[in-house]
């Protein structure tokens, strides 16, 4: 018991890390669910890396990394939107180039800083153990905003995930709600990168939600499971990192991915025995 609780009760930084982790898990559960449902994994990944130059500039100039990340995300969303509208066929290629471009731009900018490797490591892998109270407050507000967006847009988001044309015919502008969804994903990335870093935040977005998709029959349940798996990964990752002196962000993501594959394997073994009922008899 001591091993499981004491690290959090005796170390303020561990408790703060856990609180931040839980908030981020909830935000990522919601955003990640829609990333998976709408097949936006690649855009989500690009967005996660696109924030890097923004953060880098912020560090060099000396203002908040979150603001820098927000600017980076905006530029990225603008770029992605432009690309998706202009070239339907090769948007994957263009988005891919945009994201490696942003990534390398970020690294180039950081390389101008005095503590190059230190800054870069913090941005890429996060600093969950050094999270400030102010960051936690920002994460709390962001998580509430994300929940609000998901509740308000529940119907259009569901229709959009099901079939964008259905959403459009039902009177919900597919483009508008797609952009709201991108915006929601961007907020999530912006407030989450401090915990596990820009390189791994994508894992936090899709690993718990992916596990949720495996076990849930409903979207609400998928989000709840994702939040649970995310929180579990945070807690276990922090513990592992504490006891074995490992990098916290990477440990968290590793746990999340291991959970995914464990559930995936169990599911596949069980599914062999599942029987689907036939439709009802015809009149």
């Amino acid at each position: 018991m001591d091993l499981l609780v004491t690290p959090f009760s005796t170390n303020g930084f561990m408790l703060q890390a856990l609180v931040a982790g839980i908030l981020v898990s909830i935000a990522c559960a919601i955003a990640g669910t829609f990333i998976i449902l709408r097949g936006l994994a690649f855009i989500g990944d690009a967005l996660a890396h696109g924030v890097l130059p923004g953060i880098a500039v912020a560090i060099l100039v000396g203002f908040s990394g979150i603001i820098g990340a927000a600017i980076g995300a905006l530029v990225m969303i603008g770029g992605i939107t432009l690309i998706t509208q202009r070239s339907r066929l090769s948007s994957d290629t263009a988005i891919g180039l945009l994201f490696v471009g942003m990534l390398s731009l970020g690294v180039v900018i950081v390389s101008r800083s005095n503590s190059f490797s230190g800054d870069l490591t913090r941005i890429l892998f996060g600093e969950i153990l050094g999270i400030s109270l102010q960051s936690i407050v920002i994460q709390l507000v962001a998580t509430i905003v994300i929940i609000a967006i998901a509740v308000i847009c529940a119907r259009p988001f569901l229709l959009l995930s099901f079939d964008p044309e259905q959403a459009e015919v039902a009177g919900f502008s597919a483009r508008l709600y797609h952009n709201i969804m991108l915006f929601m994903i961007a907020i999530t990335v912006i407030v989450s990168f401090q915990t596990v870093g820009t390189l791994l935040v994508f894992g936090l977005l899709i690993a718990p939600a992916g596990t949720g998709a495996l076990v849930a029959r409903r979207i609400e349940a998928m989000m709840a499971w994702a939040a649970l798996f995310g929180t579990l990964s945070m807690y276990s990752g922090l513990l592992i990192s504490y006891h074995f002196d490992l990098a916290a962000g990477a440990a968290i993501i590793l746990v999340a991915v291991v959970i995914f594959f464990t559930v995936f394997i169990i599911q596949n073994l069980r599914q062999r025995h599942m029987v689907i009922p036939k439709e009802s008899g015809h009149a």
Partner: protein
Amino acid sequence: MLPRDGADGSTPGMEAPYVRAKSLNVGYANEVVVADINFELRHGEAFALIGTNGSGKSTLLKTIVGLLAPKGGKLSVFGMPPGNSHARIAYLGQFHRSGFVLPLRAIDVVRMGRFPRHGLWKRIGRQDDEIVLSAIKTMGIEKLADVPLRSLSGGQQQRTYLAQVLAHQADLLVLDEPTTGLDAGGRELYLRAINEEVCRGASVIIATHNIHDEAALCRQVMLLARKVVSLGAPEQVITPETLLETFGIAVTSGKGVQVFECQRRGDNQGLGPNIPRR
């Protein structure tokens, strides 16, 4: 709610058509697929678009529901330009790309049919639940209601999508190849369901390459082959010559007889708003 008689130039004394196309051109960005389409669809009528893949059926349907802008001519839906009557139109498209990923039960999919009537906020209540259940029963998928969509077969999924369309209780149903993947039982349930929709006063537009089933339901048939080959009552429109022009293959005498049977079946069984249901 409805435009009054004659408001859009229709014959006074008759109700204005739900859909009216005049010299309508439909197509995509830079391409007109079908030009000069003229028809009227009234309250309680079913209309079949028959043609091969790529004949322009889907393009016309998408234009009617407002997904594509008309490329010329006039089109009014409920007396307005298309895309303004969301609460009154149910649309079944041809592709449901993400159906396999979504953690949705069949009943959740059917329930989405109520969204257009309720917008972002309006509560979905008990009455809606009853409508949803009744649609599920109509398509014979009661036992599948709680099964995840991704575990259903193609035909079962199609029944679910059709139940979603029925749950809308729309005034205009726009169906793009609705029988894809349906077995004989599903097809029969679908035909009965559409007949009931027509009986309750809804209008239905169906794109199909199946000349047999829909001809029995529809008062009007349009044969499409990137142009309007023929338009009118099924028995006048569906002839070996027009079928040859539409499908590009010679229609054997055997097939001709089959078509005739369908028309007779349609006449005898009276699939129309004022005639008893079968």
